[in-house]
């Protein structure tokens, strides 16, 4: 087998996951939060694929494919909500959603 070992894959996946986490927590535009969520899911996919090669078991790849579909589903609902927000002229900012407050 050639190329970097699994450890490298997982390291990149962990860094990506961290980036995605930071984005979700930090950004206020729901659009970018959704994009950051995609990064988190993709980081998980990378880990799954890396481990899948590690064990020579296709389970991880299958998992990754299912995750892609799920990610698409989340995006559809998220974008639907964002469109509904815009239609009602509500501010697109997760922090200024003031109607509900802790």
């Amino acid at each position: 087998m050639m190329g970097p070992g699994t450890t490298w894959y997982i390291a990149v996946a962990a860094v990506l996951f961290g980036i995605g986490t930071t984005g979700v927590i930090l950004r206020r535009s729901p659009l970018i939060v959704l994009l950051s969520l995609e990064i988190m899911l993709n980081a998980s996919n990378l880990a799954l694929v890396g481990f899948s090669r590690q064990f020579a078991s296709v389970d991880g790849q299958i998992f990754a494919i299912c995750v892609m579909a799920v990610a698409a589903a989340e995006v559809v609902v998220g974008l639907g909500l964002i469109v509904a927000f815009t239609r009602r002229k509500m501010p697109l900012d997760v922090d200024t959603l003031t109607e509900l407050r802790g």
Partner: protein
Amino acid sequence: MGNVLVWVIWVAAALSCIGSGIAVISFTNPFYSALALIGNLASLAVLFLLASAEFVAAAQILVYAGAVMVMFLFVIAYLGGRADAPWAGGPRWLQIGAFVVGAAIMIEVIVALATKAGGGLSNGTEITRSFGSPAEIGRLFLTDHLLAFEITSIVLLIAAVGGVVLGMKTQAEGEAS
């Protein structure tokens, strides 16, 4: 393909992956962020390919970068690219918290990896040629992972219903506005 070349491509893809990831969360304009995500997805596809996951890589390009991101771009275009400063707003502790959480997860996993690396992670099992081929994945989707396959379609169906329902302008809404 020589080993060195694989390494070079891998490192390039990994760097581009991380770089575009950072770009996604730091651009002001969601439009650029979405474009950066496409870059991120594409470089991930390269990594998938190098990990012998041809089918996943293809799906990544076709489904993700192709379909999902097009949808994203459509919506962003519909909204008219609102700007939002990446580090602005939000209480300061939240910003610090975000970094702490993000860094904690990274460090956690990398430390876990470092302690594990001596064990067995570096040496992968020998893989056969058919590993990760569409045929094998298809077979598994119809046997061991039949349920996963079916449920994925259910999830997509529910999301489709959701997209339609939320996207529609309703009677009550018309009266409320």
